[in-house]
């Protein structure tokens, strides 16, 4: 069956902050442009997960009157704390001693999912066509090798790959320019980086896994506008990570944990580290008596400018964290993603209007505050490869004394999938059992994400070599997928004394961690049927 083709001026893949900002800016520059935006989630925002303390810099430029447009940006940061956690003790680091990039008094505590929903309304009002529930599953190329557009996923395919009665073929969406804004480790972005060699001469990309829970807490423990971060326990000095606790409106607290995916011990379970973190008395006292109402996890970019691939290629741009514009010391990627989208829009407009090459993106990017910000931030994350303490000392020198202007750039040496040590050389970690009050297991957590994938469809977590998990990864690394997956997708089951690798793909919350951390890069995340995955509310 031949597929239908639809033509647009610009096709955008992904309805996050970068893709939506591209769409809005394009329409502002030229309202005649036809723009279509695809989103794999069942609605805009349903796959968005972020802390989030929001810096309004990019939004101030994009929609200067956002305060008058009933935007969901309401809770101003009123107070900040930074705690170092020991196993039982904690000590507070004076905030005036924090580098200015880590100061938040001008920022807001928001739900990025709700901000995206609001941005989508603004975009639709400008005439952007937004299609949630339609994952872009494939890149289309012109004969000259340039990007032509994308194809949406076929729907109604059964697990054997056969067409069901409800089969509905995908559509070819063809654009003068295609913008890839899939977020961290986009599955098409990954292919484009490889095909066009976009990361040539760059350091390997660095990732983290971020968890977030929303708690409704006791009024007496709630302090709207309070932003708190911690470092230290339960992670050891060698493992990069930390927590956030943001007191949002309606007695809600956004509680989360980020762990660098360059961790070495295959026995480490990021999910359980997060659960254990909540048992620290400095944290427990905040959420005790409260109720956990949401859970989710998502991989994020930590590589910074050293790892940032070239963001333009013939016919297409790669923006936001699909490329990797997150500012790690700031632990913020929303304003940078938005700005990259705006620069993309301005470049595309020049390209369509006056035939300028898309490489103009690079010029505009280098002149922007986005580049300057990422440049100054570049040495923080790599310095933590020397451990937490040296990392902090270096960061103090780099960020407070030199304000990011040291005359050298530290390198990221390894990709995250290369860092695991063999299981028998690393200590096993005994995680405490969940108490179902403060700490929980993966099953009850995934339940809160509203995750669903239509039954009877092909498994969207593909193995390059189906035997490798048992024959190599289990043997060598005690199959870490069992632990790094925040949704319990991967299990080793014993059947008649024979180990079997089980993939519960219907639980997948689309975090992409497996695609990143699998030591042999044997797991490939592809798009499931449209609308599948989590249904996050105000994450």
């Amino acid at each position, binding site marked *: 069956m031949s597929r239908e083709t639809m033509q647009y001026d610009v096709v955008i893949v992904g309805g996050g902050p970068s893709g939506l900002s591209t769409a809005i800016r394009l329409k502002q520059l030229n309202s005649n442009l036809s723009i279509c935006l695809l989103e794999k989630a*069942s609605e805009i925002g349903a796959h968005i997960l972020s802390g989030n303390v929001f810096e309004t810099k990019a939004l101030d430029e994009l929609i200067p009157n956002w305060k008058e447009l009933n935007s969901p940006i309401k809770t101003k940061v009123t107070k900040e704390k930074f705690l170092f956690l020991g196993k039982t003790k904690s000590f507070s680091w004076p905030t005036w001693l924090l580098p200015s990039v880590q100061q938040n008094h001008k920022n807001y505590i928001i739900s990025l999912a709700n901000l995206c929903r609001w941005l989508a309304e603004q975009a639709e009002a400008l005439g952007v066509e937004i299609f949630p529930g339609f994952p872009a599953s494939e890149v289309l190329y012109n004969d000259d090798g340039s990007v032509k557009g994308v194809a949406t996923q076929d729907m109604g395919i059964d697990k054997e790959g056969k067409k069901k009665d409800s089969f509905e073929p995908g559509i070819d969406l063809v654009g003068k320019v295609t913008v890839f804004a899939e977020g961290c480790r986009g599955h098409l972005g990954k292919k484009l980086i490889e095909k066009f060699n976009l990361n040539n001469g760059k350091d390997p990309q660095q990732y983290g896994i971020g968890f977030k829970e929303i708690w409704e807490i006791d009024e007496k423990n709630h302090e709207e506008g309070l932003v708190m971060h911690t470092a230290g326990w339960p992670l050891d000095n060698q493992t990069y990570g930390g927590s956030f606790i943001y007191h949002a409106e309606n007695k809600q607290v956004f509680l989360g944990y980020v762990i660098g995916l360059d961790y070495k011990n295959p026995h480490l379970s990021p999910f359980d580290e997060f659960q254990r973190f909540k048992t620290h008395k400095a944290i427990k006292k905040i959420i005790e008596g409260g109720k956990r109402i949401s859970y989710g996890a998502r991989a994020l970019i930590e590589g910074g400018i050293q790892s940032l691939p070239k963001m333009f290629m013939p016919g297409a741009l790669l923006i936001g964290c699909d490329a990797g514009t997150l500012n790690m010391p700031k632990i913020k990627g929303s304003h940078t993603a938005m700005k990259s989208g705006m620069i993309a829009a301005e470049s595309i407009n020049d390209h369509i209007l006056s035939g300028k090459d898309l490489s103009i993106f690079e010029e505009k990017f280098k002149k922007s505050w986005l580049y300057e910000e990422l440049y100054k931030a570049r040495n923080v994350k790599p310095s933590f490869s020397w451990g937490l303490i040296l990392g902090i000392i270096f960061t103090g020198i780099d960020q407070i004394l030199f304000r990011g202007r040291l005359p050298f750039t530290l390198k990221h040496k390894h990709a995250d999938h290369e860092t695991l040590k063999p299981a028998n050389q690393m200590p096993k970690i005994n995680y405490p059992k969940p108490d179902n009050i403060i700490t929980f297991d993966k099953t009850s957590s995934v339940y809160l994400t*509203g995750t669903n994938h239509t039954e009877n469809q092909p498994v969207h977590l593909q193995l390059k070599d189906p035997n490798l998990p048992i024959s190599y990864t289990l043997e060598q690394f005690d199959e870490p997928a069992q632990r790094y997956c925040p949704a319990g997708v991967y299990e080793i089951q014993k059947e008649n004394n024979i180990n079997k690798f089980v993939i519960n793909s219907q639980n997948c919350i689309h975090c992409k961690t497996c695609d990143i951390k699998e030591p042999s890069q044997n797991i490939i995340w592809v798009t499931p049927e449209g609308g599948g995955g989590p*249904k996050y509310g105000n994450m």
Partner: protein
Amino acid sequence: MKILVAVKRVIDYNVQIRVKEDGSGIVTENVKMSTNPPDDNAIEEAVKIKESGKASEVIAVSVGEEKAQETVRKALAVGADRGILVKVDGIVEPLAVSKVLQKIVEKEKPDLVFMGKQAIDDDCNQTGQMLAALLNWPQATFASKIELKDKLLEVTREVDEGLEIIEVNIPAIVTCDLRLNEPRYASLPNIMKAKKKPIEQINASDLGVDTKPRIEQIKVEEPPKRKAGIKVATVEELVQKLKNEAKVI
């Protein structure tokens, strides 16, 4: 032949329902909403009948808040020809909905009215039946198969004992079971076309229907938490526990 299909906007079936802290209702902010699942089957069946050439028009109608327009739009994207949204804010009980639908039926004069067997939010399973009574039309509820025969409908019903096959005269009300069919996907071009299909907006008050709730909701509570189960080692232990602890045998 004209078919009117009623669709309701409800909390998506994958979302975990949360009760408001003060027990005044359930949380609907920041929650994904979708079409009531069996209503999707109702639309699908109507569209199939139209595609077989036996019906000329499928009209989707919803009763509810402004945003229920999305639910009507979804029905248009899978094949309904036009939509009607009757706007009412707050809780609308089945009696009010059926009175509104009665007015719409009087206006549109459809030959068949389809809807889901019940809504997954209030689980009432009343609207179809009440509408049949108000219109004095025959009704076929829990339909898992519908065959159109001239001026008759042969409907297979899902009942406790198995399947019951009945015949009803047209015009009729049919409430649909999930087994009736497999709803199609809305394709991208059809979603685009649906944006151009008309949706007529009417205020319930303009229809002269009093939609005030007749039932006072006193409190909403979560069901009590189930205690964790235990594993027993032997059949003897199980019998002993059933006897002495559970006291069921």
